[in-house]
């Protein structure tokens, strides 16, 4: 099969590889019809997430048709021919984390738990195409993928919704939604979202669906801010204005009630010296993140507010504003998305027309053009917001 693979820092390569086979009884093999490039793939390509290997198949957002099931997959859960969206965290459905619907913390699905434990204190779930730290599972930017615990994760699509309407149930739509849900939004709330990439856009839409009075989009790319504005959100360009002052203006001096960090470890910042500080520390590996969006969210949030973190962080950061966090009664909530928990309810919202996932798609490319896709997405060229790949 053809598959897009990690080929070293800042390099991906489409190669010919063997077709995947059943390794565990509860596996299924999915023939992929649509897959996507995610912002967190860029952290892997940039080399900021350790334990990538030359040849690892990339991609954790994919859907397709089941072409083979293992003997341990009950026929009433999944059959050959089913059309499915596959959630990015691999979850066994049987451990205490799964029982608590904390699927991205599954205690059984990561065969490299010992490595993850050293990095994170406790292991995390296996994730498709997302380094050996999260299991060393081949990803879905390919013609076929092996899906472990296929009786637990994949969501069957039984209506005639298009791939583009449902594909993002695999990650970015539930991730954005969880970011808003963790905010416990009340009708009077102003919600500010750092990052107007795909996850940020869905966090904004979700905040509105959950009843926010006002939603603010913070980014530096005019095309991303325009996209947010067209969806009814208020744009703030951090290259043009002082973000904290602008947020105070927009909230009568209170600060946003709820703040969502949809940026993560590779934030950029208007202030050259702070950006340089983080870039240098990250380059020499004395911190693994550039947590500028997180710092600014904490400093800007109103006292007693919630800061919800869905941008990806990998290791250690410094200059965390613990004083603001502690003295102003802020609540910090976070997590890799527990996708399985949100797929069905969000599918209903798509069917009812409450959320339109297709609004963020700017590019559709054949799988073989994945390297070009990574290039324009990473460098924010050609107004690239979200790329769907067609194997």
């Amino acid at each position, binding site marked *: *099969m053809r*598959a897009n*693979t990690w080929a070293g820092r800042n390099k991906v390569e489409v190669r010919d*590889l*063997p*077709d*995947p*086979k*059943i*390794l*565990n*009884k*509860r596996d299924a093999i999915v023939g992929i019809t649509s897959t996507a490039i995610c912002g967190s793939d860029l952290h892997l390509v940039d080399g900021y997430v350790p334990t990538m*290997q*030359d*040849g*690892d*198949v990339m991609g954790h957002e994919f859907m397709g048709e089941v072409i083979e099931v293992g003997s*341990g997959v009950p026929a009433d859960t999944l059959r050959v021919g089913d059309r499915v969206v596959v959630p990015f965290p691999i979850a*066994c459905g*049987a*451990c*205490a984390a799964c*029982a608590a619907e904390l699927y991205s913390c599954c*205690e*059984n*699905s*990561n*065969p*490299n*738990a*010992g*490595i993850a*434990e050293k990095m994170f204190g406790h292991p995390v779930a*296996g994730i498709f*195409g997302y380094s*050996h730290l999260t*299991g*060393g*599972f*081949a*990803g879905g930017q390919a013609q*076929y993928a*092996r899906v*472990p*615990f296929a009786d637990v994760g994949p969501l069957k699509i039984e209506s005639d919704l298009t791939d583009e309407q449902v594909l993002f149930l695999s990650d970015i739509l539930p991730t954005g939604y969880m970011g808003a849900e963790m905010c416990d939004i009340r009708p009077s709330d102003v919600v500010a979202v750092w990052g107007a990439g795909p996850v940020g856009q869905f966090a904004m839409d979700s905040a509105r669906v959950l009843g926010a009075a006002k939603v603010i989009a913070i980014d530096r790319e005019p095309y991303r801010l325009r996209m947010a504005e067209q969806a009814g959100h208020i744009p703030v360009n951090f290259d043009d204005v002082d973000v904290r002052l602008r947020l105070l203006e927009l909230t009568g001096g209170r600060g946003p009630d709820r703040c969502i960090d949809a940026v993560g470890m590779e934030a950029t910042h208007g202030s050259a010296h702070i950006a340089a500080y983080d870039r240098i520390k990250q380059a020499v590996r004395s911190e693994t993140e550039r947590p500028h969006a997180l710092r600014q969210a904490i400093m800007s949030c109103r006292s007693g507010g919630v800061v919800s973190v869905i941008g990806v962080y990998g290791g250690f950061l410094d200059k965390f504003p613990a004083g603001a966090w502690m003295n102003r009664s802020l609540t910090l909530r976070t997590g890799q998305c527990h996708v399985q928990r949100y797929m069905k309810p969000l599918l209903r919202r798509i069917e009812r027309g409450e959320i339109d996932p297709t609004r963020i798609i700017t590019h559709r490319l054949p799988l073989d053009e994945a390297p070009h896709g990574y290039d324009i997405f990473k460098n924010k060229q050609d107004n690239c917001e979200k790329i769907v790949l067609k194997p």
Partner: protein
Amino acid sequence: MELTAATTVRRAGTEVYAFWRDLQNLPTFMAHLEQVRATGDRTSHWVAGAPFGRDVEWDAEIVDEVPGEKIAWRSTGNADVPNAGTVRFVPAPDGVSTEVHVALVYDIPGGAVGKAVAKYFGEEPHQQLDDDLRRFKQVLETGEVVRSDGAPWGKRARKEFPQRPAQPLSDAELAEGAGQ
């Protein structure tokens, strides 16, 4: 050498105990064990793989047992590596799960065998035991040892690194034993 480790399995204590008490199940999740064969109600014969193709074998007997709660055993006779162990099964506070507490003692001898065994356990024997218990939990909770494309060999993956790339296996690699 003394090792302790613990895990929590989301299964009833009776089930977890019964799986361990059938000692022949131990090699399904313990990386270094090749075979455990019951030779009587409380006695058994153990075979562990060692480097250079040499196996280490010993007889063992259960010396203390409280059904559903505890199993203690020790090697008997002229074991190459005299050893003893205890596993305790304790109800977890959630009312559903069972805590499994394991303590092992190995008397690593001198000479060639001792060196081989010490090397075999590697630099991080605690890690080895932790990983064994993780596989124990996987087998009881999910029915199998979980395999990924980068670590497809199940319990044969004695070290988590180096791994092969996370991509589908070739037929030759499959024939080498992944997925079995």
